[in-house]
């Protein structure tokens, strides 16, 4: 579907590869391939995977466990080498990891010896080296407030609950102002009540910042509630994009409005049908 909706006048050429890009494309995966060598021969996890994600788009990814979602996301993050094909951010091929692609990991991955403020500052200091200390502190505090942690600036990561820690993770990711935000089942380990709270917090910040987001989830309702498009991956090996579902709910959304919308169950059925076949 992707290229048909792009206005032709925004197109330009990538000299290196002669590939056509739209300037509305933030993230471009083309002919992506991943092979893990194993003692029993090569294990081809992903093959010929093509996906374009637009600026200011929120895409969720669902697929069976073990199909290669994490593999794909860590390749986009630059943490996992590419076996074939390309990944480009705004037309430039990625070279390893970098703060233009913020990651929210499944486990909060906070440095336990640092306070929540220090954890956020670690990234902010790195990305805004020319700002004054006060400015950087303000940025970090702003995002911690946004995730509801104004009373926990100086709490050590280990003193916070899992949900609180993941809030710091969200603040840390937004505070470095990445071009793309990558989320790998960030709420998978939380109870459903906390998960709902964090979804609300995430989407509230996102509404404001509109950072292109790619989020893996195994929760169909979460996938619909957050996304502009839900990308369904086929089961591995050699997984690729199986289907894409546009979610046409207007933004900003409320959970109540989404649940009461006529199309909600149609979307839900579509996704569940895909996963069950």
């Amino acid at each position, binding site marked *: 579907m992707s290229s048909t909706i792009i206005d032709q006048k925004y197109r330009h050429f990538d000299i290196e590869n002669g590939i056509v890009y739209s300037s509305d494309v933030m993230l471009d995966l083309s002919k992506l391939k991943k092979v893990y060598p194993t003692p029993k021969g090569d294990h081809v996890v992903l093959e010929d995977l093509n996906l374009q994600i637009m600026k200011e788009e929120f895409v969720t990814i669902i697929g069976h466990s073990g199909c290669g979602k994490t593999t794909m996301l860590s390749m986009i993050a630059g*943490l996992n080498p590419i076996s074939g094909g390309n990944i480009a951010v705004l037309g430039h091929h990625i070279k390893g990891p*970098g703060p233009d692609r913020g990651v929210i*990991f499944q486990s909060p*991955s906070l*440095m336990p010896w640092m306070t929540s403020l220090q954890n956020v500052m*670690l990234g902010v200091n790195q990305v805004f080296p020319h700002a004054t200390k006060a400015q950087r502190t303000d940025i970090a505090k702003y995002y911690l407030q946004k995730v509801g942690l104004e009373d926990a600036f100086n709490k050590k990561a*280990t003193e916070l609950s899992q949900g609180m820690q993941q809030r710091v993770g969200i603040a840390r990711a937004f505070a*470095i102002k990445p071009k793309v935000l990558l989320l790998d089942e960030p709420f998978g380990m939380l109870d459903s009540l906390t998960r709902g709270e964090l979804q609300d917090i995430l989407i509230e910040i996102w509404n404001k910042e509109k950072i292109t987001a790619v989020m893996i989830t195994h929760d169909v309702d979460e996938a619909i509630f957050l996304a502009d498009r839900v990308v369904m991956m086929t089961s591995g090996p050699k997984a690729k994009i199986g289907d894409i579902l546009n979610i046409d709910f207007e933004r900003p959304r409320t959970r109540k409005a989404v649940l009461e919308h006529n199309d909600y169950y149609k979307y839900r059925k579509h996704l569940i049908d895909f996963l069950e076949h």
Partner: protein
Amino acid sequence: MKQSMTLGKVTKFIGLAGFLGTVKNMFTGKLEKEDFKNFLRKVIVPLASIFLFFGLWYLGSKSLYNIEAEHRIYKALVEQGPTEAEKVRTCIASGDISCQPNTLPSPAQVWESYKMLLADHYAISADKQAFKEKTAALNVKRIANGEAPIVYTGRPSFVDQILTSLKTVFAGFLLALFIAVPIGIVIGLSKTLRSSVNWIIQIFKPVSPVVWLLLVFMIVKTLNKDSSGDSSFIISFISVGLCSMWATLVNTAMGVSSVDKDYINVAKVLKLGPVQKVFKVILPSSLPLIFTGLRITLSVAWMVLIAIELLAQSPGLGSFVWEEFQNGAVDSNSKIIVAMFVIGLIGFLLDRIMLTIQKMISFNKNDGI
């Protein structure tokens, strides 16, 4: 209030909190029926074990005393005839110092020796103080004339020996720390380096303290030929450091090489430079393991120190024990046992200090070790 709080901290520090807490509950009448098991476990059993320990010690020393006495009488009988044997028997029974069997001392004898050593310490301290006052005026004059001041050269007291030992172990520990931690970090960071120096660690780690001492002796003796100073302190603290550093080296390398992959990924995503990566991520995350290593290092250092002092003839508890053993006086054996308890207690306290530091820096405060 403040005092009882610090008291609480102290008892907790030496691991007596459970015992004292239960005893306190007993006297304040807070003891419930279900606490009985607790009471049994935390008060009765420890007390019983203490009585058993001293009881066995007492009985053991008594029977060894009898064996030794019988042996002496028998020897006199065989070598000098019945009259001499009878003389020896009455002499032993009279408690005369000249013919007491010399064997494992009883708890009471050890306690006496302890008091004597303490009294001896006070006497020497007083002597030292008097000497200082007497020479103060003279020393001022000597220093003004550019001459070396007169220093006290009397015999060191038992407490002086303890302090010397502590000084040596501390110097050795610092040496181990300054060698093992930096090398451990460098080895931990590089897989290639780790596998290439592994054989050195594996081979030298199990080498006995005695051999380390000899090695250090060879080197220091050569380097130190010209200087007139006593090199035994240098030799013993370097040996202690070399013997004890391995645990820290291995633990530091392990800590640095096994940093949680998530933290490394965070560092990669943020593109932290190598220096930042080491100081902000790798070192803090391996600190608990480094301190585990340092704790082992300190206890090993204290353990080998005694043997090394003994062999290197450097002052301290080790040479105290050795001199008493060579001395063979009536109370020598009980002095050795006093030293044994002191060594044990100090080792225990050093370990507790390290444990407290270790707990302080561990991220998860619930980690009990």
